[in-house]
């Protein structure tokens, strides 16, 4: 295939994003505006923050289905403890709750050697019921609505606290992945754990930390969500995990581990955010939105395949997470 096409394929995420934006601008009146941008970013940032953690985890060759539940638990803790600790410390506690959840996942997978898909399927259920337990299945209100409102203030026409945090973190992730030794070691572990071990890299430690990192970020996202809505709810984030995994994979990160990029994830998150926003502007029914995002997911993964089959590896090597 021609150089041009292969370039298109290499930057397929960016291409798809641009196409989406272009199409939206043409078809949706008033789409191309700063408000839309800030909206998209803000909506993207919840998924995005979790996606950052999951990107790291997927590169390490692991997966975490429990992020949605962690999201809820952290939010609840962050709200519940407000009377006792005050807003700031409560928020911190919420994030730490996420960290703790990550420790549990990491322990199950690294120490007990349980396949991460199974382990986090289990913790997904456990953390979710913990959320119901703590709240007796009732959403709990926070102290200060005004703070929630300021949290969703828009600065410089574009950024909310959330979206700002998201963008900064993902750029940091990009630098970390590409420029630091630890970042490269992460790829090594995801690509071939045994070799990494043999080269003196502690694969177990890296995987464990990846789980902690992922859950912590889910915690951050959860706390922010709860602060913005001034509510801790046991049902938060139940729809989230799938969306996040989709965003990361659309971003070209591979579930088998060893490959992925922060900017790709950014692209994936923005694509999905843009798509949703655009379709909502046009009152496209939710189920049609599902079809669209499903199609994009499959399409991009197929493209990813076609790029890779240029390589020596047999086309349909069994895909093991």
């Amino acid at each position: 295939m021609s150089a041009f096409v292969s370039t298109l394929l290499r930057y397929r995420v960016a291409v798809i994003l641009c196409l989406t934006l272009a199409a939206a601008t043409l078809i949706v009146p008033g789409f191309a505006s700063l408000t839309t941008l800030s909206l998209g970013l803000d909506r993207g940032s919840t998924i995005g923050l979790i996606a950052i953690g999951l990107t790291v985890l997927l590169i390490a060759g692991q997966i975490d289905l429990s992020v949605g539940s962690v999201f809820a638990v952290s939010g609840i803790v962050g709200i519940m403890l407000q009377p006792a600790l005050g807003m700031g410390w409560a928020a911190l506690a919420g994030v730490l709750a996420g960290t703790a959840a990550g420790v549990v996942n990491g322990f199950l997978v690294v120490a007990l050697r349980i396949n991460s898909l199974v382990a986090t399927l289990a913790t997904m259920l456990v953390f979710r019921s913990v959320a119901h337990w703590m709240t007796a299945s009732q959403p709990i209100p926070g102290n200060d609505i005004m703070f929630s409102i300021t949290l969703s203030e828009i600065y410089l026409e574009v950024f909310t606290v959330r979206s700002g945090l998201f963008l900064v973190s993902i750029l940091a992730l990009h630098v970390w992945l590409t420029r630091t030794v630890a970042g490269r070691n992460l790829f090594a572990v995801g690509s071939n754990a045994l070799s990494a071990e043999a080269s003196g890299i502690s694969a177990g430690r890296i995987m464990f930390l990846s789980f902690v990192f992922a859950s912590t970020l889910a915690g951050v996202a959860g706390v922010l969500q709860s602060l913005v809505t001034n509510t801790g709810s046991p049902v938060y984030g139940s729809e989230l995990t799938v969306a996040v995994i989709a965003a990361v994979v659309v971003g070209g990160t591979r579930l088998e581990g060893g490959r992925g990029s922060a900017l790709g994830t950014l692209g994936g998150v923005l694509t999905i955010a843009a798509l949703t926003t655009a379709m909502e502007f046009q009152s496209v029914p939710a189920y049609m939105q599902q079809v669209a995002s499903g199609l994009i997911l499959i399409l991009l993964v197929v493209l990813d395949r076609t790029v890779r089959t240029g390589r020596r590896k047999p086309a349909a090597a069994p895909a093991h997470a």
Partner: protein
Amino acid sequence: MIGKTARLPAAVAAILLASTAFASAKTVCYVTAADSHAYATPANVALNDRAKELGIEILSLSQNFDVQTGTEQVSTCIARKADGIILWPLDPQAYIPALARAKQANIPAILINSPMAEQANDFIKSFTGPDVYEEGKLAADSLSEAMKGEGAVVVIAGQAGNGTTIGRVGGFVDRLKEIGSKIEVLETVNADFDQQKALVASRDLITRFGDKITGVYANDDTMARGFIDAWKEANSGKPTPPIVGINGQRDAFDSIRSGEMYSTIVQSPVEDGKLAIETMAEILDGKEVKARLPIPLTVVTKANVETVQPAF
């Protein structure tokens, strides 16, 4: 390759074009619970149709039962500078900050179908639609009337943590206390408004309590049907204990005729939708509206089953 990449914008375009065009009329932002649901769908349809008659443009966003999506969608509405917001809350308070910002932006907002916590009242012009808490109370009355104020009931509730569930269970329990009835609640199980889950749960409840069950309260008719099926499996021929459901579905009416159910509470999605948009229209015309505009709730028993229209 090119072919593949080119197909995407086409797809997006198709999807986007398939939807309604944009106009300069007054635009009302309608954040609905879902666009694929037995009750919500007819309500949405009614609301949209009435809006056309009133010459109002509707921008409808579906939360698909996800609160978080909903809160974000309210922000979308604000950013779109809608002239009004009709919100179908799935949580008693999560939307409050968003509604507060709507008020800051001078966008009038009203709630449809489900109530929210008191703090919300400062930010909304009105709450139209059935009062799920009220429904709980009505159910309590109807059931204790059927049970002569004594006996033991099982409650088959909806999703844990869901606003409607909280209202309908809360209203029921509080009302029983209120009238100091001697009815005891044996057990409350969550069946997520799902007939199969209700069926499975009911089987276990029937095995567990057997004849102790002298009354049943289901948060909606679908789950009531689940209990009836379970009961028939367990002890065929034996008449069901008095069962009270909510919604007034067509098949619930049949069950009432055949005596399998004691009563249901009709809340018409059509009324629900219409009332909401009409109220919003008045607000847009600068009229004052009542803070609480209930849609009629009718308790349907054998007595009036032939005269009342089923909700859907």
